């Protein structure tokens, strides 16, 4: 089965540093997402991306966050200046079209110290 792949699987960073999390969505998919899960809590929506632009974002997705699809295969989440409360598992997801199954990557665990 096709997979969404994410790198790195785990990153430790100093507070205030910039972090880029990378994702390769499934190749023919058109919709891309980032979600996050703080340890022991629910999975929360961050942002959706379609047709090379953000289609929706949550209140969590403030000016410190940005997303980019720099080429035909990668989809990145950048956190400009990390805070302790950004420590979480970040999931990338993709789907082909409206109403289709959404597929999640294995997650990138970010620890901010």
């Amino acid at each position, binding site marked *: 089965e096709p997979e969404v792949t994410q790198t790195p699987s785990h990153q430790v960073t100093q507070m205030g540093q910039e972090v880029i999390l990378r994702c390769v969505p499934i190749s023919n998919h058109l*919709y891309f*997402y980032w*979600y996050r*899960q703080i340890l022991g809590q*629910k*999975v*929360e*929506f961050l942002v*959706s991306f*379609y047709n090379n632009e953000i*289609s*929706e974002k*949550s209140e969590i997705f403030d000016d410190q966050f940005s997303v980019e699809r720099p080429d035909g295969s990668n989809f990145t989440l950048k956190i400009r200046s990390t805070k302790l409360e950004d420590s979480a*598992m970040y*999931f990338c997801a993709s*789907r082909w079209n*409206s*109403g*289709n*199954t*959404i*597929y*999640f990557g*294995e*997650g990138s*665990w970010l620890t901010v110290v």
Partner: protein
Amino acid sequence: GIQVEQSPPDLILQEGANSTLRCNFSDSVNNLQWFHQNPWGQLINLFYIPSGTKQNGRLSATTVATERYSLLYISSSQTTDSGVYFCAVVHPSYNFNKFYFGSGTKLNVKP
């Protein structure tokens, strides 16, 4: 947003037992998926089931959209079934699959 409630929050089973996990949601949905989060944190698709019944091996799921609930059945449980099971839904007003997740059911299957 939609409220998604899952029950029970925790479940301990002996290997071989059957179980039913429930997901209630507060509004109409046009997408519902069940996921299994394994001990390594990976979210694995189990079912895309906005309505009706599906089966996949020892797992099956039923969604009654008009009554706003979905059930996940696990039969003959195995230790590898351990982990957290999440239900996630999308409201029809969101075209871009903004999922609302429940808090999950944490399942521990003992050998």
